[in-house]
């Protein structure tokens, strides 16, 4: 590694060169903005890929009977849709935002380890090519759901080792991104930028990064054990050799629960940046927001088995996980109340980012309510593995994480490109998306309660109406996203010049608004003035 050490330092030698030209600029870049852009574009592409898979699922479910795909292929679609959306769309998009914004927000010229930053991005395209290639293998891609539960997943053909290696590569990429963020935030803050002055987006990402480095090894270990069980005759999860298939579930969810918070905590940060700006008021309860995020992070380690209420845990276990899970409602509630209090008596305007932020608060709270219902173990014996669950987690992930990403994109797009986006198209995108997302997912609550299990390619006729409605919503939602892609394209190409402040009064809400739009290739070669920092909050 001595070579890398040398090069990391060496990278600073090139500060005085502008960006290289052409394709190689992007391959060799160590610039946090370039890498952020790459991450964001990858996230958007994978959002469309995963979305296309969702549309295959919804097309098949439009009416009862099998019309288009074989059930085995359907299962591959549900599996890959989830893996791609989680690891391909949402996580890279958040990593992209972190790369773009964190150095600008803490007053640093770049990320702490630019070379590693490049590597952690460029692992992703290879991972996704590998994952997609499994679709064309003998026996098809993994079809056991994104949770990859054994023994079912061990019936996968040649795709299993590729899927497992994809997970390893994705894990490596996220770990390097997380470590980079931790090191950057701890060592690269501008003088005067204390921890309690960090913008909430940075705080939520730091906590996310800690969650990532804590749980990624568990997932890596668990999938490796799947591999050794299948190919090397070990019996970690094989009852025949004295193993336990439920152990995998414990390991998976020990990773998986913090993982879902990895998907939502940065959204909290984004929403906490946007609401104060458009309410023209400081964020209410900054300190309690930080503590609430940290306690959500901590709680996420001790509630995992609420995903497995039906595996036959001892009664004491069921009750413990019920109580622990219910507790999460407290810090989450604090966050929602703080956002409400921020809006209260503000002078609100409703540009697209604010619309998305408000929709986030409303719809994420919906997902929170169903989450609270599911935390109650006896009730979850009914909800478990039904469409009620599907509705719940899509409410927290689509109008939650994805809406936060939309909001962030509209909020910072003028800063990134130097051009205002098309407000009319933005609003059109917002209304189409918000209405269709509800048409898509709200009826799923009903079919779930009425008894439709999840992950089935075909269903009994009494569920037909709501499923048809849900499919219509999904298609409208899917195609509305083309508007989003077009708005971004248009803003990159040109448009009304954005000021450095972009939004009225934004300067009070973060250092990034003191840089010109678009910001210089290296952000804070000029240290932010102490007075700017002390004015924050």
């Amino acid at each position: 590694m001595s070579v890398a050490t040398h090069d990391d330092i060496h990278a600073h030698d090139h500060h005085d060169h502008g960006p290289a030209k052409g394709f190689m600029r992007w391959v060799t870049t160590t610039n946090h903005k370039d890498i952020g852009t790459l991450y964001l574009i990858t996230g958007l592409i994978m959002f469309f890929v995963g979305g296309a898979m969702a549309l295959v699922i919804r097309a098949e479910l439009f009416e009862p009977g099998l019309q288009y795909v074989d059930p085995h292929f359907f299962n591959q679609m549900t599996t890959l849709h989830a893996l791609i959306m989680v690891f391909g769309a949402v996580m890279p998009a958040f990593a992209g935002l972190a790369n773009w914004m964190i150095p600008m927000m803490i007053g640093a010229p770049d990320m702490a380890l630019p070379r590693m930053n490049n590597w952690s991005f460029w692992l992703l395209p290879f991972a996704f090519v590998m994952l997609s290639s499994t679709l064309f293998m003998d026996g098809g891609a993994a079809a056991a759901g994104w949770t990859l539960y054994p023994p079912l997943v061990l019936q996968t053909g040649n795709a299993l080792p590729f899927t497992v290696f994809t997970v390893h590569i994705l894990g490596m990429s996220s770990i390097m991104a997380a470590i980079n963020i931790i090191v950057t935030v701890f060592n690269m803050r501008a003088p005067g930028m204390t921890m309690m002055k960090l913008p909430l987006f940075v705080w939520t990402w730091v906590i996310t990064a800690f969650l990532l480095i804590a749980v990624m090894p568990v997932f890596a270990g668990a999938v490796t054990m799947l591999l050794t069980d299948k190919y090397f005759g070990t019996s970690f999860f094989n009852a025949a050799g004295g193993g336990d298939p439920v152990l995998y579930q414990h390991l998976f969810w020990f990773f998986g629960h913090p993982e879902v918070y990895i998907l939502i905590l940065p959204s909290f940060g984004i929403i906490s940046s946007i609401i104060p700006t458009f309410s023209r008021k400081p964020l209410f309860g900054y300190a309690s927001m930080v503590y609430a995020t940290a306690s959500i992070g901590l709680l996420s380690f001790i509630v995992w088995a609420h995903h497995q209420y039906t595996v036959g845990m001892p009664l004491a276990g069921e009750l413990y996980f019920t109580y622990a899970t219910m507790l999460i409602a407290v810090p989450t509630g604090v966050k929602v109340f703080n956002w409400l209090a921020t809006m209260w008596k503000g002078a609100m305007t409703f540009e697209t980012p604010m619309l998305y932020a408000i929709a986030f608060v409303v719809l994420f709270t919906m997902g929170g309510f169903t989450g609270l219902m599911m935390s109650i173990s006896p009730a979850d014996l009914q909800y478990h593995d039904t469409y009620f669950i599907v509705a719940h987690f899509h409410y927290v992930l689509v109008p939650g994480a994805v809406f936060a990403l939309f909001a962030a994109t509209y909020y910072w797009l003028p800063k990134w490109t130097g051009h205002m986006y098309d407000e009319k198209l933005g609003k059109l995108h917002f209304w189409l998306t918000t209405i269709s997302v509800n048409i898509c997912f709200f009826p799923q609550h009903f079919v779930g309660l009425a008894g439709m299990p999840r992950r089935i390619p075909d269903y009994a006729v009494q569920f037909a109406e709501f499923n048809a409605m849900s499919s219509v919503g999904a298609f409208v939602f899917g195609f509305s996203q083309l508007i989003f892609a077009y708005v971004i394209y248009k803003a990159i190409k040109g448009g009304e010049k954005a000021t450095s402040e972009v939004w009225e009064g934004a300067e009070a809400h973060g250092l990034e608004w003191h840089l010109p739009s678009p910001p210089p290739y290296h952000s804070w070669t000029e240290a932010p003035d102490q007075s700017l920092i002390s004015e924050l909050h």
Partner: protein
Amino acid sequence: MDDKELHKANARLVWRMVVIALLMFGLGFAIAPYYDAVCNYFGISGRVKEATAEQALKVDESREISLEFVTVVNGQMPLRFRAETGKLKIHPGQYYTVNFYAENTSDKKLVGRAIPSISPAWTSSFLKKAECFCFSEQEFEPHKERKMPVRFVVDPTIQADTKEMTLSYTFFDINEKTQTIKN
């Protein structure tokens, strides 16, 4: 750093990467025998004998627990597996022997392994076995039946309101597994 030096450094890096790739590839082949060796050394082979030596316990005649025996054959294993009795009323502290029978209904030799499971799960620590066929490999000649005794006791310290327990054995085909590995 001039060009010549850079060129040298790059060449070195390439060589290092090639060596690392070869090592990783080799490790892939080495890991299976290595795993076996480690397991043999530490005695982790998954073939743990769960039986403990018989000890004298105070028999609690006043209490009776209904113990149910369940047999399961996993997958497509051609085995007819049953317990001699479906249910037994037992006193905690007293030793009992129950015979299990398994018949190979195929023309081929079978190797199987039985895994116990106890319900309610928390009672499993109270059911102690002095003799058991579980976890060890069992061979079945074609069309032959084998008798496999289980000798056990329920610890008298078990919670007073325990009235029912279920002991299940599931037979897994080990042949199948060794075959898939060879493939």
